[in-house]
């Protein structure tokens, strides 16, 4: 197992870091890691999405660097979530949605008809906008993925996976005494971390996060952001957010979407300090949005 190969990270006490985030100026929290240092395994090429006759996304091409956080920003309805959902083919579940172009993971086309979407989603996990724990116990929520994929040979394995996933999500200390109580009884931030633990439990390579903090209060948001930063060590993370500060705080690479088009992408620091496009600049300075 992978547990022992890296530290699980200290649990996040709710009171430990509240002051650290929202009030701080954007610039200080921007990480200075060069995304080019991390090779890209996930690439997209000319991706367009249509809902019926309506085109929602226009020819998006972007490389996602390995083991780092990439943020998609843009005003609502700009197609960033749509694009995110293409990456693990969640758009398949929407009636009348059609995707063209190439999305490749390790050179393998994700829209290849021979590719198994079940396996794909095990490799590319997803965390949703609103915390959506299943109406089951905390343990069962995390165990769900390993169970369906048959990842645990026996009960002990399963318990180990659940524990390590909860630890990685920084939730274990808070819930270790009530693993068998319903996951819906947790606070919003805890629920979202539970959902992250649930995604981690399957052992994905990429984790997609669709505005994971939009339903949370600032303190819970800060905790999740720190968690994302921790996870970057082991996972490739793509986060969709409408909060520029959040993108600036957690991501190394940022892509700006507007009206279904990818306007600009690059290292986060560059995008925020020195955008090439006027529209990006307008958005960042709050003139559109």
């Amino acid at each position, binding site marked *: 197992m992978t547990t022992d190969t890296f530290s699980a990270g200290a649990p996040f006490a709710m009171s430990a870091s509240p002051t650290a985030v929202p009030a701080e100026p954007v610039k200080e929290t921007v990480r200075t890691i060069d995304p080019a240092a991390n090779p890209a395994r996930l690439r997209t090429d000319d991706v367009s999405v249509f809902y019926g006759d309506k085109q929602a996304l226009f020819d998006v091409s972007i490389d996602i660097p390995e083991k780092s956080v990439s943020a998609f920003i843009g005003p609502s309805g700009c197609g960033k979530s749509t694009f995110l959902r293409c990456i693990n083919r969640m758009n398949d579940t929407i009636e009348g949605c059609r995707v063209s172009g190439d999305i490749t993971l390790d050179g393998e086309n994700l829209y290849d008809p021979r590719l198994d979407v079940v396996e*794909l989603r095990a490799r590319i996990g997803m965390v949703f906008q609103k915390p959506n724990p299943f109406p089951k116990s905390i343990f069962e929520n995390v165990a769900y993925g390993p169970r369906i994929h048959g990842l645990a040979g026996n009960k002990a394995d399963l318990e180990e996976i659940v524990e390590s996933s909860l630890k990685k999500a920084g939730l274990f200390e808070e819930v270790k005494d009530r693993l068998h109580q319903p996951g819906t009884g947790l606070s919003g931030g805890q629920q979202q971390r539970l959902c992250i633990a649930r995604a981690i439990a399957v052992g994905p390579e990429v984790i997609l996060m669709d505005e994971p903090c939009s339903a949370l209060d600032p303190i819970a948001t800060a905790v999740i952001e720190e968690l994302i930063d921790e996870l970057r060590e082991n996972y490739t993370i793509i986060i969709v957010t409408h909060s520029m500060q959040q993108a600036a705080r957690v991501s190394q690479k940022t892509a700006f979407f507007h009206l279904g088009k990818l306007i600009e992408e690059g290292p986060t620091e560059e995008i925020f300090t020195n955008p090439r496009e006027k529209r990006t600049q307008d958005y960042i300075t709050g003139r559109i949005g």
Partner: protein
Amino acid sequence: MTPMLIAAVLLVLMGLGYTQGFSRSRALLAADGARLHSRPQYHGALVALWVLVPAILVLALWVMFGPGVSRAFIVSQLPADIVALEGSQLNIAIARIQAIASGFGVAGEVAPWETAAGETYAQFHFLTLLLVVGAAAGLGILALLYARKRITPALRARNAVERAIGWLLLACSAVAVLTTFGIVASLLTEAIRFFTFVNPLDFFFGTVWNPRFSSTGSDAQGQYGLLPLLWGTIMVAGIAMLVAVPVGLMTAIYLSQYASPRMRNTIKPVIEVLAGIPTIVYGFFALVTMGPALAALGQAIGVEIRATSALTAGLVMGIMIIPFISSLSDDILRQVPQAMRDGSLGLGATQNETIRRVLLPAALPGIVGATLLAISRAIGETMIVVMAAGNSPILRANPAEPISTVTVTIVNQLTGDSDFAGPQSLVAFALGLTLFAMTLVLNVVALMIVRRFREQYE
């Protein structure tokens, strides 16, 4: 003729009241240029209401006491020897007088006193009618004048009319409550009367159903053991659920989770057609098609299946309940948030894993509630079992044999009998009470579960 006349008089008066109220308030408006609190229509309606109330009171009194008064008058006209007859002969005499008075006449000899009584009664009848209509109209007109006088610009006619409407609406809602009350009261009184004949313990725990007089003569009331009927009811309902729950639930799952909108929109109405078919048709289907088919099947596999049996009735009842389960489950599955589905699919679960491990557990309370409602419907269903269950109130475990149920027995014991003199017919109410209590408990529990389920996702 008479009711029409009265209705016509009333309508004319109300119309008059309305126009009076309308024009009077209008006139006020024109005269002083005063601002009316309510629009003229409301003043008109208020006056019309004032007209209606006393007239209705008079008519109600007449309906209640009129026949008694008429009868007393005729009796007072009859010779003493006829009055002394009493009973049906007196009634015949009274009917003859009424027939003579109405001008239709009677066959056979007419005694002179009959003609005389007929004539006086005709006059009396005419006078009372005149009096009643006159009183209703007179009081109506008085009320009209009074109400018309009350009209001032400040009169809150609209509020008064709206209050009256409010009371009327409340009275209408009370009908449903009264119905429940009527059901409980009538079932209880008649059941209690039944229990004066038969010990409640013998009824609720008896294992023999034989309402005929027993042959030994010692137990003259026959035996009224509920258990064989209850068992039959449960067996049929159980078989019905075995058919309806899997088929209905799978249909709902497929239609709500897999089917394209077009497929859903074509198939759903077709299945709902099943829900609209009267139960008598299902009964006939059971009798003519399902029963013989089962019997033939039994013969082919070497098991004796009777054409009318718990199995036949249960299967067809199951068919009847399929759309009930499927539409309720469909509703409930749709109420499980899309986020649950996405969460599971996003982890790489297949559709059926998502459905079985996430959607169904989440929807379980709702589905249990729906199933309880369906069970309550199954145990209360009558025509299918009357026609296809074989009507054999004996405790037995084999579903391929005829059985009887609570509802079948209610029909058998009460059909065509309305004097409710003996336990043979009164037992129907004790059975009805049992049935009502069972369905009530099921419904209350089911509605509670469903409501709680809805609140969970609202």
